[in-house]
């Protein structure tokens, strides 16, 4: 019976695929956990320095990942500081103000921006840095500012998308209610629409933060280095956690260093997992509110 055998094959196939996928992921992550958990202690972060002194700024950390964590934090702040307001405003424009043609044209451009590989964005940031170096200031080069801005370009399309989708998925009656009472578009946005989409937008912000934390390709080209300490200014070079991991995979000198790499992986994974869970919880609260 051909009908039955097709159905049976698809059944067996599907379950096999699920099995292969889950076991591969569990292998890759499990390996990380096994090798990384032993190395997780306060020394990983602060090295041989005293944590309190470091936090007060009186001591430098030489063999810990403290600087890398701070570097990643700075990147996140700069990138989201630029991309979140711009992205939300653009998303609002697309959802509420744009005419049909603008919507399609802009939507097309932003889809392209979303699809641009991260390394190309890094390349763009690098080119911008070189351009300024050659034409404006000899002292300027790839640095925290350039990396932050490039990361902003990376996450902006996602912010635009989340904002736009959150606004557009509001029930049409809700979108029209305040307008029917004579509110202007801006008042409608401020008092009705944005409050209702807050959770969607916030969870989008958190996902973007996660993207900044994990990205390596952009920062590779725009100023991350292996040892730079805590960034002293926007124009200085800096360290970052994902780059530390990448660098270690290539250039580790002994088992102890390698084990640090595994533990650093776990820290990065935990940071991203927490961000992801927070975004999920916020989104869940949102859907419950509107049942």
């Amino acid at each position, binding site marked *: 019976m051909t009908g039955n055998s097709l159905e049976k094959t698809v059944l067996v196939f599907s379950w096999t695929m699920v099995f292969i996928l889950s076991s591969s992921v569990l292998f*890759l992550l499990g390996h990380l956990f096994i090798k990384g958990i032993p190395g997780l202690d306060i020394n990983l972060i602060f090295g041989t320095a005293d944590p309190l002194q470091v936090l007060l700024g009186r001591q430098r950390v030489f063999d810990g990942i403290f600087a890398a964590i701070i570097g990643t934090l700075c990147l996140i702040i700069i990138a989201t500081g630029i991309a979140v307001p*711009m992205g939300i405003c653009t998303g609002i424009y697309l959802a509420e103000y744009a005419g049909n043609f603008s919507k399609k044209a802009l939507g097309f451009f932003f889809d392209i921006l979303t699809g641009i590989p991260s390394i190309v964005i890094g390349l763009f940031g690098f080119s911008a840095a070189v351009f300024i170096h050659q034409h404006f200031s000899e002292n300027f080069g790839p640095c925290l500012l350039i990396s932050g801005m490039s990361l902003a370009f990376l996450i902006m399309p996602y912010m635009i998308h989340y904002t736009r989708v959150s606004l557009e998925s509001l029930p049409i009656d809700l979108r029209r209610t305040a307008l029917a009472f004579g509110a202007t578009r801006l008042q409608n946005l401020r008092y009705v629409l944005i409050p209702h989409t807050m959770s969607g937008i916030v969870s989008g912000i958190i996902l973007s933060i996660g993207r900044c934390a994990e990205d390596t390709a952009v920062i590779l080209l725009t100023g991350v280095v292996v040892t730079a300490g805590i960034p002293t200014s926007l124009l200085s070079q800096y360290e970052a956690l994902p780059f530390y991991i990448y660098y270690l995979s290539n250039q580790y000198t002994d088992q102890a260093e390698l084990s640090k790499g595994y533990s650093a992986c776990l820290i990065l994974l935990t940071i991203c997992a927490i961000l992801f869970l927070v975004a999920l919880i916020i989104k869940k609260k949102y859907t419950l509110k509107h049942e």
Partner: protein
Amino acid sequence: MYRKMDLSLLIKKLSCMGNIFRLCAGLSTVITISVFVFMLILGLPLFRDTSVLSLWAGPWAPQEKLYGIGPMIAGTIGIAGFATLLALPLSLGSAFVITTLGHPGLQTGLKAFIRFMTGIPTVIYGFSAIFLLVPLIREGLGGAGFCVLAAGSVLAVLVTPVMTLFFIDSLLGVNPVHIQAARALGASRIQRLLYVMIPQALPGLATGFVLATGRAIGDTLIALMLAGNAIIIPETLLDPARTLTGHIALIKAADYDSLEFRSIFACGIALYLFSAFSVIIVRIFEKKQRPAI
């Protein structure tokens, strides 16, 4: 009277937030275009000196002044192609189980697992695979271990969640009336999936495939860490290769004004065009899916 009110409202609108929104939108568009333009400008010296064909398809031999990024294009196609082909059955199977075949509790759990996978940093996959997968390949299949197979397999795992989530949305987006009709006729779960859901969801499935391909082509770290980065055209799965993305990451250390260096802009343009092209294809597919009864 109506026109007058309209006008004053317009003026009010223009002089406040609406303008800011419009500005942001404009800025974002400008950035998208300038990414492309910048690369064109900076890659110009290279384009002036070499013919188009030898640039894109030719070999790479700096000593002989040959700066063809052909091997890198081959590397990208090989690794990303292998990854996407591997990811396709994995995603289909997972999507089938999550939308219909599994027990409801399993469906939710599996979907959450897949969602979680999208949040796992790329560099972590690479790091773990270097010390887990590469030795395995080296001992089991020979070669150096750093090859298309290693990079492609891990890339497949990276790309599968994206594809699967898209497939799930497409399958679940099929008109529920048709599914209800099939149920009333006595269709089992797999029958509903095979004869009603999949045929209706085909455009969406194609879109998901194209999107995942774009993601695979654009990834830097997996290939950089696992594929060996040799500048050759890979002929078997066990050969090392270098991707366009990896090339950009590696060459930046070279002398800034050299033509060798400028080749990374050629890579950048190739990548930009690849991704723009896949966006266009996706749009065409989405238009096809619109007329769903």
